[in-house]
């Protein structure tokens, strides 16, 4: 694994921020696109490489010196908040240098309404309209004050999600959701660089009897595998890591599609694994997040199953209910929960490539995207509040 450029300083402005983003994402910038063309499906949940192509195009054009940013969204038939939020973050940074974004919006329809709402809410473009959705993008560095960044950011997001569209989240579900957000934000701020972006949206997909909630958060800190590799010599979990790497290397498991990056990313998601190391109670964050998703999947209406994705560096992890956290069968894991992402449930084997795979593009940090239906049990009407 090659050396990685230093962290993306949250205080950097405009092109300086995007230049560091490009370095960390390996964007060559040797061609400056005249127009950034959106794919038909613009979502990390469905097509992460296509979504990363858009962000690479935005960055390359700004770094090429252009003062305008033509975004051609006409072919886009489906857009996810996850991808919209990343491009919005990059457009905001470009705007700091006076770059003007110009959109060629999709044809009328639900996708157009959503993309319009994202542009309006996130980078101030367009006119307020009947978009029919709630959408927002926050940056935790605006909340980051030593001990309370994660608490403040969780509160800000939950304030937006708790009361919306005439209903509010049922109390115990709000607690579960708040717990997951708090855990994820705390992890991002503790192990990242203090700069985490988080966006949320609620909308009613065409033909659905439920609203859908989408949440995405990303940071530009070290990807998960780097965090593990950065574990100090002598850390209690360091020998486990080395044993695991040696096992896959000695048994010839590594291929161009299953590299140490994929292996270590999968490892980082296991219950109890922590770069802090050793302690019985660390490394519970990923279990909380994956456990929350598993429960959503178990409770969901079959026609609208939830989806979750984690993008970290070049590694893509897809959660669609195929694999779930299960109590470990390993005596050395002492009642932990495992998710090896393969039918054999074997950490000695690579993951199912439908669940963990290598991307053509790199994301210079870690992104988590979640989408699920707000079924009736998760809501209570205002009159009962």
């Amino acid at each position, binding site marked *: 694994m090659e050396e990685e450029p230093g962290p993306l300083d949250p205080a950097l402005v405009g092109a300086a921020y995007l230049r560091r983003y490009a370095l960390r994402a390996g964007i060559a910038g040797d061609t400056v696109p005249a127009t950034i063309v959106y794919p038909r499906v613009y979502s990390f949940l469905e097509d992460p490489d296509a979504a990363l192509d858009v962000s690479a195009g935005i960055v390359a054009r700004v770094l090429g010196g252009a003062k305008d940013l033509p975004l051609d969204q006409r072919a886009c038939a489906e857009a996810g908040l996850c991808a919209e939020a990343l491009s919005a973050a990059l457009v905001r940074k470009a705007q700091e240098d006076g770059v003007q974004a110009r959109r060629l919006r999709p044809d009328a329809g639900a996708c157009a309404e959503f993309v319009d709402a994202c542009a309006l809410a996130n980078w101030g473009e367009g006119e307020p309209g009947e978009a029919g959705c709630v959408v927002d993008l926050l940056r935790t560095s605006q909340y980051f004050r030593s001990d309370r960044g994660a608490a403040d950011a969780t*509160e800000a997001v939950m304030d937006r999600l708790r009361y919306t569209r005439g209903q509010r989240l049922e109390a115990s579900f709000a607690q579960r959701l708040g*717990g997951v957000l*708090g855990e994820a934000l705390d992890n991002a701020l503790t192990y990242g660089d203090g700069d985490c972006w988080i966006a949320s949206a609620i909308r009613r997909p065409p033909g659905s009897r439920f609203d859908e909630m989408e949440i995405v958060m990303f940071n530009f800190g070290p990807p998960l595998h780097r965090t593990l590799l950065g574990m100090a010599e002598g850390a209690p979990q360091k020998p486990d890591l080395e044993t695991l790497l040696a096992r896959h290397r000695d048994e010839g498991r590594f291929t161009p599609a299953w590299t140490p990056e994929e292996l270590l990313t999968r490892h980082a998601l*296991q219950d109890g694994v922590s770069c802090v190391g050793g302690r*019985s109670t660390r490394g*519970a964050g990923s279990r909380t997040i994956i456990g929350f998703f598993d429960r959503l999947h178990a409770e969901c209406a079959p026609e609208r199953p939830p989806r979750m994705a984690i993008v970290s560096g070049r590694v893509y992890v897809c959660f669609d209910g195929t694999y779930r956290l299960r109590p470990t069968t390993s005596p050395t894991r002492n009642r932990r929960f495992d998710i090896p992402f393969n039918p054999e449930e074997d950490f000695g084997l690579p993951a199912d490539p439908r669940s963990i795979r290598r991307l053509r593009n790199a994301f210079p940090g870690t992104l988590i995207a979640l989408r699920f239906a707000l079924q009736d049990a998760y809501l209570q009407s205002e009159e009962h509040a």
Partner: protein
Amino acid sequence: MSATNEPIEIDLAAVGIQGTTIFVGYQNGANARERAGLDLLDHGAGQVVIRIPPDSLTMTSSFFMGMFERSIGVLGPEGFARRYRFEPRHFDDVIAQGIADVERGLVGAL
């Protein structure tokens, strides 16, 4: 410990994160532990009531661990349940999960 063996009450809002009733983060929990003086209370005789603000939205398992991991280690799960009472019982799931995590007493991963 009072002479009448009245339970000692700890207001989580006062020892938690200033200005918010969202309790997140291992370090925040550890800070709350120190402010509440739990190292002393673990070795006392009476019951301790942890008052959770009624409008509190959430407590993460990391916060619970930072605050109570050491108490569970000292008292054991049953002793902890006898000594510490949480009112109201908003976060029973988080508390039960936290006790189970400490009980496992894990070191290492794979």
